[in-house]
């Protein structure tokens, strides 16, 4: 005879799967009806409890942190710090990373917590009491104060309009939502006008400007979500609000960049991660248009980073290096998120993704170059971490030849950056030995990882790996010879596994011949470390 608990479970499953109704189940077991009925009712009520999901921004934030943590632990364990135990430890690097992390966390957490922050219980456009709320705000704006404090008050009003937009997005009134969006644009206009008057009047605007830059990054994030949920008739107004928010963000950063380029860079990088977060959320909804839009904004913000870097360069006093380090570190994270996006983005967004990747690679290089005159060892360290990240990507995507080849292209470009840093370290005579040894030691690890990847990939991806191994071994050999001349012995490579040795040796011969020919044709010009075109079959 069937046990009661089995009958109970069967009935629950049947009702949940719509195979039978509650009444049918009870009719099937009339002698158990009194016992079954209340328990089934409770079970089915529990099934109705709403599902919960983590927010997309949390998922990305946590993933990036997790990957950072994993790569940091691996890197520290494997890198040859022991030989340089009396060298300064990379605390500055970590501090900088964590500063960026803090800003990102603030922006994303505040954005993700929008449901709390913006779930205003106050009146909304269309409510009877809303005109009273507006009148109160007007009184507050008219209170005495200088232009700076009035700019802050106007920003508070803009924040309220964003709250209202978020609350209205789920309602069906397009008119009310459009009105809130237009009121947001008005409030931001007031912020701009008051801030300009404050600056013209000689007031120090840095703190308020930083607040505006952070707030608008947050607004942008919330308005994106409003746009997604808005009725079609309200979308043009919401789109205008989004543009106003982005323009306000850029203007604030432009002002801040002149006074505090480091702070402006942190805010800009956090906003860029916000755009990537947006792109990822849109990719999960297979909304190619919004993925492209978010990546376009990401690119614009990245380009704007160049202006900040320029302002830092004009300031001098090492500010350029500080900004460069922030950017180089952040691009590691950006490339990781773009990897995730590459796996999820709709086909129509691929071109935007390709541009965003290229943009990140360019910023990575420029960040490294900006810092390497001041601290080539640190620049090398960041670049080697980035190279390891690309190899990890190749390993993770071993079954996808195209992804492996892309990761290796990025790896080779970064190897080029490393060569450039090495030359600069030599020219400025700073940390030259440390840079050379870091490259030599880490290159050995890279060769080992490349050999691992070689084992896992399809045959057609092996050419690219063999080429990368050949060039890595040449880089290593060059370092070993150079260090020997200075009386420092470096460990030699244990060797390429026997079954791939012949193919890699052939690539090394081809690469060396190509380099000699290039050197003969263009004496004095460093070779293109990306390698001879013919060596990539």
């Amino acid at each position, binding site marked *: 005879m069937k046990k009661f608990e089995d009958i109970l479970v069967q009935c629950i499953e049947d009702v949940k799967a719509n195979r039978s109704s509650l009444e049918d189940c009870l009719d099937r077991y009339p002698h158990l009806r009194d016992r079954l009925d209340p328990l089934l009712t409770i079970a089915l*009520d*529990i099934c109705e409890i709403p599902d919960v999901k983590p927010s997309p921004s949390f998922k990305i934030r946590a*993933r990036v942190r997790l990957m950072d943590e994993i790569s940091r632990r691996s890197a520290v364990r494997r890198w040859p710090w022991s030989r340089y135990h009396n060298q300064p430890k990379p605390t500055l690097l970590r501090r900088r990373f964590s500063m960026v992390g803090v800003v990102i966390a603030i922006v994303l957490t505040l954005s993700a917590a929008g449901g709390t922050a913006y779930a205003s219980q106050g009146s909304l456009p269309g409510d009877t009491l809303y005109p009273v709320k507006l009148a109160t705000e007007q009184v507050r704006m008219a209170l005495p104060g200088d232009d700076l404090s009035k700019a802050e008050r106007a920003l508070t009003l803009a924040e309220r309009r964003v709250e209202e937009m978020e609350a209205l997005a789920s309602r069906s009134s397009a008119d009310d939502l459009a009105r809130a969006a237009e009121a947001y644009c008005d409030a931001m206009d007031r912020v701009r006008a008051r801030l300009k008057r404050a600056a013209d009047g000689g007031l120090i605007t840095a703190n308020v400007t930083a607040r505006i830059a952070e707030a608008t990054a947050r607004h942008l994030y919330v308005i994106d979500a409003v746009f997604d949920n808005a009725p079609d008739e309200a979308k043009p107004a919401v789109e205008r609000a989004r543009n106003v928010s982005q323009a306000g963000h850029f203007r604030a950063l432009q002002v801040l960049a002149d006074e505090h380029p480091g702070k402006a860079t942190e805010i800009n990088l956090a906003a860029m991660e916000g755009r990537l977060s947006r792109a990822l959320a849109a990719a999960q909804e297979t909304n190619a248009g919004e993925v492209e839009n978010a990546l376009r904004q990401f690119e614009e913000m990245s380009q704007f980073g160049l202006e900040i870097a320029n302002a830092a360069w004009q300031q001098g006093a090492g500010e350029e290096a500080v900004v460069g380090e922030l950017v180089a570190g952040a691009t590691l994270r950006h490339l990781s998120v773009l990897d995730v996006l590459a796996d999820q983005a709709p086909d129509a967004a691929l071109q935007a*993704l390709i541009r965003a990747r*290229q943009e990140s690679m360019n910023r990575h290089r420029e960040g490294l170059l900006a810092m390497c005159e001041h601290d080539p060892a640190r620049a090398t360290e960041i670049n080697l971490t980035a190279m390891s990240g690309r190899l990890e990507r190749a390993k993770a*995507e071993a*079954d996808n030849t195209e992804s492996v080849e892309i990761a290796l292209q990025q790896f080779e470009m970064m190897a080029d950056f490393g060569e450039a840093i090495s030359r600069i370290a030599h020219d400025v005579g700073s940390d030259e030995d440390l840079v050379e040894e870091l490259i030599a030691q880490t290159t050995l690890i890279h060769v080992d990882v490349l050999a691992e990847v070689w084992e896992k990939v399809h045959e057609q991806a092996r050419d690219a790996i063999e080429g990368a191994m050949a060039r890595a071994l040449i880089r290593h050999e060059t370092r070993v010879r150079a260090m020997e001349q200075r009386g420092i012995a470096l460990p030699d490579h244990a060797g390429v596994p026997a079954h791939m040795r012949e193919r890699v040796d052939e690539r090394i011969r081809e690469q060396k011949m190509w380099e000699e020919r290039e050197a003969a044709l263009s004496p004095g010009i460093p070779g293109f470390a990306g390698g001879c075109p013919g060596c990539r079959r």
Partner: protein
Amino acid sequence: MYQNRRQEPASDEAVLVQRVIDRDAGAFGRLYDVHVDRVYRHIYYRVWNRTDAEDLTQQVFLKAWQAIDRYRKTGSPFIAWLLTISHNLVIDFYRTRKDRAYIEAETLASDSASSPERAAEASLEQQRLWRAVLKLSGDEQQVVIMRFMEGFEFAEIASVLNKKEGNVRVILHRALARLRTILEKERES
């Protein structure tokens, strides 16, 4: 340059897990993508607070990466192993916060009213039911939440709780009976 498309077979979790055992961070990232929603949900229904759920979810994955060698020996489904880690972290969470009751009615009410999750839509009746669920004993609560709210199969629940499948059904029956008593008492009072 940089053309890229995902060509991932659906049933490759075993391959990914093996790569993670070989310390492949990329593969671990992929497993994170697959399981983060379930781990978060599992924790959220036990701490009833988004901030703590996010914090603990991150800890689960970091611990999983650190202890992956131990997973090799258990041979249980990967998600079951992640939930075991989650379960232990939730126990530690409450152990280190002795001032917190397992569920605080005010916390539940305010969190459900303001969080962006769909818990915000919960009716008063549902909140009453949640509170009753959280008055169940440890195993009973686990089984009810995992089966009805998280949609786990009986075999998976049995694996996480280290019990036989038949025992899980018995626990579920007892839990529903106890819920009935709790709800009736509440109505009377």
